């Protein structure tokens, strides 16, 4: 109980330290190291070293602990060159087997404390082995999918590919060893059966083993074929670079005519093909419904107006009638009459002027006189240059005594 409490205190303290100095940890993870600079960070680095989060990396320099670095690499999916993934898997398999043996011996000897420790470590060893396989495989899959994107040149990719192919083979060998040790049978045949061991092994290892086998085989196949392709590609890349350089130096270069030469490479025999077109047969009754459906789904044809383009001329819309705005005939006549009257030395009779100048105008005399009388009010300043004088007579009726306008005499002012 005391031991557990001490462990809890240590963990709590470690988590607090991680939280307290997270910015410095992040800085060191990204930059690679921390060098003492006389600031407050020196003290913090020392504190982190006390908790084994930092390790000394030379005089006055601190590095991040490899365990934490590895954990953060997992979190950030950071690719490391020549990462060690599968080499430790075989040793971990042996450890799992050894712990089962240890448990067996402890039980046989009646050392229950040691048997308990062996069980506890067995759980941990299985979890570590499962983690090594699943994390390693997922990393290898990522590398395969990205074609070792962290490096660019063919040579570097080739080296990375060879290394990780070897790592995949380590995993494969560890899996073969796991199969060969028959740990599940060993657990089943234990003198005192332990369900905890059985369950742990089944859930963490046994149920995932087939999947690991498949993935590892797939990865090995991929890396091998990729390696082959990279090796094949290397001379092509060199030739491509040389040719591209040649084209840069000779931009006007044109490949020679080769079609009449006797040596015709296969690529030259390529048929560029033909455009395939097919037409429906309206006479085919079986296709009638389908054709009806197609026809009904066709959009309406758009009407387009085509206009001939002429340089230097903006063409009007076709068939557009020209509308000419003209004042009414009586207004023109009135205007002329007023102008004549203004110029004339003697007064002019409106009716006389109408008969003389506009005999065909379809305006009755009385309406014409009315227009002349009111022209001043309705038709602007031009009519204010003359004076009107009505020629009137009284009506014959004694009751009404209406006045009748017989003529209007107009003269200039």
């Amino acid at each position, binding site marked *: 109980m005391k031991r557990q409490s001490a462990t809890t205190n240590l963990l709590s303290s470690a988590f607090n330290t991680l939280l307290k100095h997270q910015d410095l940890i992040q800085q060191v993870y990204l930059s690679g190291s921390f060098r003492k600079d006389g600031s407050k960070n020196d003290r913090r680095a020392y504190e982190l070293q006390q908790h084994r989060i930092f390790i000394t990396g030379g005089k006055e320099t601190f590095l991040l602990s490899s365990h934490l670095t590895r954990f953060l690499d997992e979190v950030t999916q950071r690719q490391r060159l020549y990462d060690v993934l599968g080499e430790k898997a075989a040793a971990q398999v042996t450890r799992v087997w050894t712990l089962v043996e240890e448990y067996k011996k402890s039980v046989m000897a009646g050392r229950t404390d040691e048997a308990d420790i062996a069980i506890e470590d067995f759980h941990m060893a299985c979890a570590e082995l499962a983690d090594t396989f699943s994390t390693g495989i997922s990393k290898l899959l990522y590398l395969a999918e990205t074609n070792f994107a962290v490096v660019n040149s063919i040579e570097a990719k080739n080296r990375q590919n060879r290394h990780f192919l070897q790592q995949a083979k380590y995993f494969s060998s560890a899996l073969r060893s796991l199969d060969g040790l028959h740990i599940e049978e060993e657990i089943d045949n234990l003198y005192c059966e332990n369900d905890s061991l059985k369950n742990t092994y089944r859930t963490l290892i046994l149920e995932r083993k087939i999947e690991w086998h498949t993935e590892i085989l797939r990865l090995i196949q991929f890396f091998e074929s990729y390696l082959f392709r990279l090796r094949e590609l290397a001379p092509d890349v060199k030739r491509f670079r040389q040719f591209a350089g*040649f084209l840069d130096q*000779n931009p006007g270069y044109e490949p020679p005519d080769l079609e009449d030469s006797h040596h015709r490479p296969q*690529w*030259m025999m390529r*048929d560029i*093909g033909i*455009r395939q077109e097919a037409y429906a047969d309206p006479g085919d009754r079986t296709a009638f419904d389908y054709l009806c459906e197609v026809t009904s789904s066709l959009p309406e044809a758009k009407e387009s107006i085509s206009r001939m383009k002429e340089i230097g001329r903006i063409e009007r819309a076709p068939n557009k009638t020209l509308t000419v705005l003209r004042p009414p005939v009586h207004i023109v006549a009135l205007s002329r009459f007023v102008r004549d009257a203004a110029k004339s030395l003697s007064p002019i009779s409106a009716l006389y002027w109408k008969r003389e100048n506009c005999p065909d105008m379809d305006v009755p005399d009385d309406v014409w006189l009315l227009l002349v009388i009111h022209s001043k009010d309705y038709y602007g300043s031009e009519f204010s240059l003359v004076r009107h004088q009505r020629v009137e007579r009284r009506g014959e009726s004694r009751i009404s005594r209406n006045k009748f306008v017989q003529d209007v005499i107009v003269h200039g002012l």
Partner: protein
Amino acid sequence: MFERVIFLLLEGNFICHVSQPEAYSFLNDENNLKSVEDYLARIERRVARTSKQTGFYLAFAEYGDKERAKIRTSYADIKNSLGPVVAFFQAIIRATGQESLLMQGSIIEVDTLMGRIDQDASLRSELQSVGVRFKIAADASHRKMMEAILKRMVNDQYLILNNPERSIYLVTSKIEYLLDVIKFISETDETVISSEAEDEALAEWKTGALL
């Protein structure tokens, strides 16, 4: 699938794992391949493979007067497009640093690529010159120019647009056809051979002088 494969071939398509995965799987089966070849033999055609065996295309079974005109047209197309296509791949390799781009299935991420081009004046200038080779208006923005070039490369079957949302393109097996053409020209054309020999001699001399 037989009918589809025949039509794809007759239309002049390159069939590979990247461009037509189902048709490629179909042709990878020896029996299917034989049935397709038997069919094409009746119209004096055959199925050819690219040099790395990753793609199929239609080829003439024989070289006669009938085929001569078509082969001449095809070769004229290659001659015209060789310069721009080589310049394009060279520019992409320079921008991404990925030499393995000349491999079928390689990925071109346009956003990442444009990010690098935008930050580097020499890459921008190279893109302009590739655009000129493809006869794309020089006043277009870099992004539009790149899109226009990529569209041409897709039309010419060198690339396929794998993910339109993220603008991810994949290199098809036609790249191997291009490499075959370059290999043949590099090995047979005296102009290229002598120029490359001069370059190599110069490089050796420089190395010797340095040592």
